[in-house]
């Protein structure tokens, strides 16, 4: 079985994604976690591109890597956190359950995925040009999902107001 260019791309990006995701959950300094997550996001954007979801890939870069994660990093920097002495929660029994449940989720989901058959992506089918697929996406968003789209807009507005209100609270867990 020879590796095509696309395969190499996939394995590379997937490797980076998994390694950096491991970095997120294992590193004790939250800033490194955040930077690892940024790397994950970028490689996920690459994976989207490899699935010819160009627009989504671009948005992934803009929204996740460019905005959300920067926010995380900024907040962490403002908090000036050092590497944590104890990064993980206490409790051996619950720890066992936690890891076990995650493993079970992986086992079941991964098992189901691998049973889903060999749905190879063939070359030509369904690779619309980036322009066309973007237009199709826009069509869906502004016609079929118009209401959800508008609702999202409302949600973001409320969230923005809520976040501002939250962060203006002067100390304490109760607003006064």
């Amino acid at each position, binding site marked *: *079985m*020879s590796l095509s*260019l*696309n*395969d190499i791309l996939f394995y590379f990006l997937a490797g980076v*994604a*998994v390694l950096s*995701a491991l970095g*997120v*959950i294992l590193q004790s300094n*939250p800033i490194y976690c*955040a930077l690892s*997550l940024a790397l994950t996001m970028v490689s*996920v954007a690459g*994976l989207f591109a490899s699935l010819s*979801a*160009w*627009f*989504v890939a671009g*948005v992934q870069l803009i929204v*996740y890597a460019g905005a959300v*994660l920067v926010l*995380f990093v900024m907040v962490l920097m403002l*908090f000036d*956190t050092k590497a*944590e002495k104890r*990064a*993980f929660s206490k409790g051996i029994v619950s720890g066992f359950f*936690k*890891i076990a449940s*995650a*493993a079970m*989720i*992986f086992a079941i*989901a*991964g098992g*189901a*995925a*691998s049973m*889903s058959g*060999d*749905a*190879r*992506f063939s*070359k030509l089918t*369904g*690779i619309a040009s980036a322009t066309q*697929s973007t237009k*199709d*996406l826009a069509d*869906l968003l502004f016609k079929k*999902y118009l209401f959800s789209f508008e609702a*999202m807009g409302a*949600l973001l507005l409320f969230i*923005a107001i809520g976040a501002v209100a*939250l*962060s203006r*609270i002067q*100390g304490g*867990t109760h607003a006064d």
Partner: protein
Amino acid sequence: MPTSAVVVDSISSVGLNHYLILSAILFSLGVVGVLMRRNIIVILMSIELMLNAVNIAFVAFSRSLQNMDGQAMVFFVMTIAAAEAAVGLALATTIFKKFREVNIRYFEHLKG
């Protein structure tokens, strides 16, 4: 018509299940992060990781089924994720102001 720089090869051996398994791995890592970490911001990041894993599955299915709806969903997931991050960070900031630390156990104060 512009052409894509990356050409998907005809003999590609990577298929839907590869992406799904990758998605499952990332999701489980996110679960571990949420369950195990003590820093609330890292927990938030783990949630983002889980959402990303789901996005990968969405896009892969969208490609496999030749249906753009999956990508539209990704769009919504991203919006929700951004919103969630904003509120989560605002909460974390509030907690930090009070305790100078962002440990998850401070949220136990929310217990009724």
